């Protein structure tokens, strides 16, 4: 099983460039998430989606955009890249969220982005 697949694994951008981080999952999960991980800061939620066509902001959405046209795919777009967006980005999915289920998140292996 592939699980959650992210591409690319590494990318270097120049300030002001744009790019899209791709994420796809094959577990038929309704919920998908984008996190960024910075040293000593834990995982911060950027955007999430509860199903195709529905997205919402997380804790740190500024400078990012997402779309969810299918259940499987949840791309994250960086517009006008800035050095503050240098980070490791993780996509995750879950079957559901709420007190009646485990809410387990399944993470991809991450995309390391450097903005110079």
């Amino acid at each position, binding site marked *: 099983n592939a699980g*959650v697949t992210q591409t690319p694994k590494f990318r270097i951008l120049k300030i002001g460039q744009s790019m899209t981080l791709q994420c796809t999952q094959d577990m038929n999960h309704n919920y998908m998430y984008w996190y960024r991980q910075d040293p*000593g*800061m*834990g*995982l*911060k*939620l950027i955007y*999430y989606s509860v199903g195709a066509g529905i997205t919402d902001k*997380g804790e740190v959405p500024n400078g990012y955009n997402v779309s969810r046209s299918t259940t499987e795919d949840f791309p994250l777009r960086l517009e006008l890249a800035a050095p503050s967006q240098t980070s490791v980005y*993780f996509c*995750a999915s879950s079957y559901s*969220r*709420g*007190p009646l289920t*485990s*809410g*387990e*998140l399944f*993470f*991809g*292996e*991450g995309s390391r982005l450097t903005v110079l």
Partner: protein
Amino acid sequence: QQQVKQSPQSLIVQKGGISIINCAYENTAFDYFPWYQQFPGKGPALLIAIRPDVSEKKEGRFTISFNKSAKQFSLHIMDSQPGDSATYFCAAGGGSSRLTFGEGTQLTVNP
């Protein structure tokens, strides 16, 4: 408040020792407390989780202790092994609240 505070930031333990990582939360509506384990170059993966109706949950060498009145929970790794060396994240969430992660603890188990 949605914060989850985790300590220590890093921890070095000898093989066979006990590793203890602590977390504190503020939102009394949280009712789901998982721990995630992350190896270098990989994404986090669920290790163990607890709900507030029990004070302790054990899975093999890993135990979560939960203190609802103090709004604290901790991860204990018994007989720590070099293969346990990883970054550990606590998290809290549930109900209408999204999962909030702690800052992470980098555990090193020396052989």
